[in-house]
């Protein structure tokens, strides 16, 4: 009896003392987004562990990847690295360094969206972690310096000390392993030796990639396309458009929007898309045509040839850089949830 009474007392006492335990974010204060639309994903803060000391392999040792596996491809200071979805499905955030440059590669498996953000140059700890919270079913990260919460698809701090600050996006490409390897044969690729006991041969979300189901609610549902169709979205200067990846030509296709002064380059066969301002710093507006080359994707009227990151690699403008638009690939349902006025484009 005494034991039971003690157990009951402990329970009741604990019940009475846990009000602060209901706080599902460790940063207090207001939210930039509707708080009632922020969802607990279940694992808790850091329950999905970020990769903080990623190890890389040479492409010859990438036998765990299939040609059509999607990867996030990055080139910094001439060094190419690939971060496979197969690994990021389980970790969502990889804090990495290129020399002294700190970056975070973030990927939300529920929205299919990937980005690379510049690490905080001012912070002693520039790392990001997975908060365990979601907005529109999309990853909310937190930075380990200020404990500010950041919406991935908005690339904006939505809660905490740095609320309303924008993340600095760095150029990256989402494509297949085969395409990335053909573009950058010397690329390094993330190792499965992550320090975590995960089966990277398995996709952790069942049939989610292809079925019609959502795991968490979103603010805006749009049934114009299949919810999991991968679209390349652009949202900049009042333009909000989505280009289904599968609607691009099999080879490289270039779309020049002369009125809005931007260019989209994409390929369904090689599974990539990118978008840039077509106007150079000196005010020159370029138009482009596709080139079917393994490494370069478009050519302007001067004969300059550009790569997938918008860098001029050959020709009179070699060394120049096109300005990337705010754009990335995501599942249609997620893009439409964040950008409800999106115009669906048919390349």
């Amino acid at each position, binding site marked *: 009896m005494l034991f039971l009474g003690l157990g009951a007392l402990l329970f009741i006492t604990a019940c009475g003392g846990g009000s602060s335990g*209901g706080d599902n974010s460790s940063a207090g204060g207001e939210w930039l987004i509707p708080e009632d639309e922020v969802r607990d994903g279940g694992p808790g803060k850091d329950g999905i562990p970020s990769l903080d000391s990623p190890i890389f392999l040479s492409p010859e040792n990438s036998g765990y990847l299939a040609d059509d596996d999607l990867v996030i491809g990055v080139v910094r200071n001439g060094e190419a690295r690939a971060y496979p979805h197969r690994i990021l499905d389980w970790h969502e955030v990889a804090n990495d360094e290129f020399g002294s440059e700190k970056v975070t590669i973030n990927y939300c498996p529920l929205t299919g969206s990937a980005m690379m953000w510049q690490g905080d140059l001012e912070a002693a700890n520039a790392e990001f972690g997975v908060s365990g919270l979601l907005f529109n079913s999309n990853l909310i990260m937190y930075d380990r310096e200020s404990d500010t919460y950041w919406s991935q698809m908005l690339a904006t701090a939505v809660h905490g000390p740095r609320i309303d600050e924008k993340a600095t996006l760095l150029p990256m490409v989402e494509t297949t392993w085969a395409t990335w390897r053909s573009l950058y044969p010397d690329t390094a690729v993330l190792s499965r030796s992550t320090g975590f006991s995960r089966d990277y041969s398995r996709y*952790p979300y069942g049939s989610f990639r292809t079925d019609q189901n959502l795991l968490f609610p979103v603010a805006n549902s749009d049934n114009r396309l299949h919810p999991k169709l991968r679209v390349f979205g652009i949202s900049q200067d009042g333009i909000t458009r989505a280009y289904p990846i599968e609607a691009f030509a099999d080879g490289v296709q270039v779309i020049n929007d002369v009125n809005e002064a931007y260019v989209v380059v994409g390929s369904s066969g090689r599974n990539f898309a990118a978008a840039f301002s077509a106007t150079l710093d000196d005010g020159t507006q370029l138009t482009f045509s596709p080139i079917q080359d393994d490494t370069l994707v478009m050519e302007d009227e001067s004969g300059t040839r550009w790569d997938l990151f918008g860098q001029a690699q050959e020709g009179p403008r070699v060394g120049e850089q096109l300005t990337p638009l705010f754009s990335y690939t995501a599942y249609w349902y997620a893009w439409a949830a964040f950008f409800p006025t999106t115009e669906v484009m048919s390349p």
Partner: protein
Amino acid sequence: MKSPIVLLVVGAMSAGFMPSGRAATCSCAGVALSSADAYIASKAGDSQLAVTYNYFDLSDLVAGSTEVNDETQRDRATQTLLLRYGYGLSDRWTVGALVSGVRHERQVRTSNQGEQIGEGLGDSLVTLSYSPQQISVWNRQQLSFGLGVRIPTGEDDKGSPLFLEDMQPGQGAWGGSAWVYWARAYSQAARLKTFVSLSLSETGENDREYSFEGETTLSGGISYASDLGLWVQAAIDLRDADPHTRFGGELPNTGGQWINGSLSVQYSLAPDLAVNAGVVLPIHRDLEGSLQFTTRQQFSLGLVYNIQ
């Protein structure tokens, strides 16, 4: 992972009214639905009051049927406190009611965030059971049937931002269960008994279109009651839980099959008062999806008071 409160509630629902002073063994993720000996019929006019405390340690990380190391050092536990009352309408019909308090705890020890707690009033139950056969001097078999309705009295709005359903004290949805229990005694004194039971449960959607869905549990075991007021039971439970759903679609990494072993003891302090304790441990599990946290162990303590 099955919400502890769901199974707890349905398990307790299955327990019905037990004038013998037996405690309900509640359930949780990976644990059996109810005590297999929980369907003992009442006598007309008898009533029973029982309090049970349960602790569920949900810290095992399992991929399919393989336990894997959790480098995030996540602790997950649920405590429940159940208050149950039963009344014998006749020698064959029994009604019961249960209210619950629930506390969910979660902490990732590699994180800078402290323990998160979702606690409060849990769901409630009403049950009705019918026992056409009862063990007596002249009859060595018992057969009982039961039905239960879970009432969503529990709090399901905990957390800021809102916790996921498995951290809410209440499920926010109506549910129901049905069970059948058969036991056989091997002497007139009925000290040694074997039993088997089958229970089914289903759960509706809450207002966020989330459902814990249903599960089936088959239990079997053996019990022995001594002259000294000590009662011991060992049981094996086979549990099959459906994946949870949201918006009608199955949620990955929920549901699965479990085989659990349980050991319960009870001691009669007085003719109308008994204390009990139990432990449930997993023997085998085969869980849906690629990774689930599930029950490592479960403990219970109870006090039962019979009113005649």
